[in-house]
């Protein structure tokens, strides 16, 4: 009996997002299906933090994938795909909120004006991850969208500040200061809630 050739380890390797994008750019549209499988759940979860209507979220995520496909030739495969995809989805969600007049159409955000010192501490995030998840689930909807998005991307999507900065097209320092303020706002709401209702 002839032995079948042993497959090389590389043939088992899962292609990276960027490899899949290269294949889509080369005309292999099925590879886009694999990307959809990888990001569908993440984007639906991200969208739920912005839009309440489930059917609406599904349509918006579909719209985000359509836009990603249409613009995929603009993606530089030497960069990471994840922030690029989130950025498209973020823009789709924000546009919907603007249509619903739940997102300020034009506002001057002073967080963007000057540099804010930022220190990203992964151990601190790990330590407070669970506590923040609970607070986010409970009070997120009470925060303004600009604080909501950084909390979700950092604590629920586990993105680094640099990636969040790329998703939101803002300086890294702005991500840091928004995240700090968002956490303070969440904690303040928790304390207020605790004082009013006790441990319920």
């Amino acid at each position, binding site marked *: 009996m002839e032995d079948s050739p042993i497959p090389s380890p590389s043939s088992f390797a899962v292609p990276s997002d960027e490899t899949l994008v290269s294949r889509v750019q080369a005309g292999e549209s099925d590879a886009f*299906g694999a990307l959809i499988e990888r990001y569908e759940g993440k984007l639906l979860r991200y969208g739920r933090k912005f839009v309440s209507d489930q059917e609406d979220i599904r349509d918006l995520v579909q719209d985000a994938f359509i836009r990603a496909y249409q613009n995929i030739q603009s993606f530089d495969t030497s960069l990471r795909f994840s922030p690029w995809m989130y950025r498209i989805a973020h823009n789709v969600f924000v546009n919907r909120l603007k249509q619903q007049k739940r997102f300020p159409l034009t506002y001057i955000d002073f967080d963007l004006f000057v*540099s804010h010192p930022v220190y990203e501490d992964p151990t601190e995030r790990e330590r407070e991850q669970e506590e923040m998840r609970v607070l986010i689930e409970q009070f997120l909807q009470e925060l303004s969208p600009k604080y909501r998005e950084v909390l979700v991307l950092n604590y629920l999507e586990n993105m680094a500040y640099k990636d969040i900065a790329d998703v939101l097209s803002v300086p890294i320092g702005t991500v840091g200061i928004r995240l700090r303020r968002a956490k303070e706002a969440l904690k303040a709401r928790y304390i207020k809630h605790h004082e009013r209702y006790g441990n319920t």
Partner: protein
Amino acid sequence: METPKPTNLKDAVLAKIQSHDISMRPRIFYTLRLVGLFILSVAVLLLSILIANYVSFSIRINGHDALLSYGPQGFLAFLHFFPWPILVLDVFFIAVLQHMVRKFSFGYRKPVLYLFGILFLVIIAAGLVLDRETRVNDSFYEGAGRAHPSFVGMFYRRFHAPHRPGSGVCANCTIITIKGNVLTAEDRAFGTSTSRTIVVPENDPLLPSLKIGDIIFVLGREASGTLYAFGLRQGPPGPRPK
């Protein structure tokens, strides 16, 4: 019979791709868009530098630099005569440029004020160099003095006008008569002039050497049609010689 609509999100998107309802934009579209944005940004940058150059030229050709040598009063007069509308126009274009630069990843990573500040400094510096180190403005300004100036010449005429009596300044002041420390002079620009009587402090170091035809710069206090000078300065340099 109608094909059933896919319920799965992935299948729905892939069905649209396969039926050519959606298609990828070609790479050339993004290249052209990037080139277009770059060209537009460079055009706005050059326009901003040109406007900054006019701010400097307006100050230079009217001799307002000299005001800064008169102490606090001169500084206030300098602020008064500063071409604010041109500067405001420049700030507007710098803001537009800043907005365009933020479309690039190196742009949005910088805080707004830093990016604006860097662009402002670079543009003002480039405008100053263009006005003070080259003869670009002077060449056009010379054309403004012709009997029938071109469109550009007419444009340059707007930068220079005699100071009105009551303004406390006689900038391009050509001496007509000298009687002791009282001068009559004309502030001239492109065929229009205003005649002034100027009383110079007797201890002014320039007074003994003055002669008819000299061009001087005067800041002073006006009363009853007479300009009581705080002091004299050499006249504005005017167009740079060839």
